[in-house]
């Protein structure tokens, strides 16, 4: 599965990494380590026609983006 590990990156990097990885199709799993990239990646994906689900994994967040 297509995956992006954006933990340790600050905004806007996680969104840019997600945008780039989406060129290889969905589903895409994105890992982030705080609320700001979680909210930003959700906004980016939903406003560009994708479906997003997310869950907490330990201290991180895992988003799953599908078309």
């Amino acid at each position, binding site marked *: 599965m297509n995956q992006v590990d954006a933990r340790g990156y600050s905004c*806007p990097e996680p969104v840019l990494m997600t945008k780039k990885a989406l060129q290889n199709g969905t589903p895409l799993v994105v890992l982030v380590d705080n609320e700001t990239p979680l909210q*930003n990646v959700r*906004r980016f*994906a939903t406003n560009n026609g994708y479906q997003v689900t997310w869950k907490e994994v330990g201290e991180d967040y895992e988003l799953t983006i599908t078309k």
Partner: protein
Amino acid sequence: MAGLPKAADPNLLVGYDSSDDAAVYKVSHDVAMIQTVDFFPPVVDDPYTFGQIAATNALSDVYAMGGEPRLAMNLLAFPSCLPVEAVGDILAGGASKVTEAGAVIAGGHSIEDQEPKYGLCVTGLVHPRRILTNSGAKVGDILVLTKALGTGVLSTAAKAELLEEADYKQMVELMTTLNKYAAQAVGSISLSACTDVTGFGLVGHVKEMAEGSGTTMELWAGKVPIVPKALELARDGIIPAGAYRNMDFTAGDTLEDSAVPREVLDCLYDPQTAGGLLFSVPERQLHALMGRMMDAGVPAVAVGAVRPRGEKLVHIKP
């Protein structure tokens, strides 16, 4: 600041026990001194522009209190690897804005640090009867904002070089326009309250105004000037962490109507650097105020109104 002892000097007219923009100290019956300090790391790569932005931001607090800047002191931190020309450019940028403000740089202090930082400590003067605080708003007043929002979102995008030249220029223009022109255009009009919109975002500063004056403030989201590029970037999730902190900080005190688009809300919470002034003006004075702003070329817009205290401090309407 909560743990610090309260100041006992009766000449300290405005201190840190209210959440105001600067301290005000009464020197004589007709002179009060305004004192403020602000500095931060670079928001743009160009050193001269950074100096201008930091100075515009630091000077703003004096205008927000109704005063005029007179003296400024440089505060500078820079890494030893930074070329000396860059340091000179930062200081020259700052000096250009201090001069434009009609004040003088009287000295300063610099230290070596890993990350560059620059700002000013500014002293201004005001007549004690003309001091503007952020707690004087009256029910029925109209809220007027003098600059468009979006600089937090735009500078986040600029960090990743996502801005076209024209968008970058618009951002720099917003952050380097002194609030002097808006403040001077007020003239003899009696404002009820004033603050400048900075790190807490428009909603955060409106919340403080409402809290201080015992009112509820209505914001008309559709009227608030927002840079179009910032709305586009917010839709794409290019939003600084500070905007989310501002949402958390105001969440319990804010009612958001569901008809307000998410990206508009995001920009209402966007932390601003050197943002505009926010006036609370009696409605009967609004027409005169707007006329003066227009004559001075200040793009002021009525963005809300002051209402009796309701359940929440801020009500964001479409």
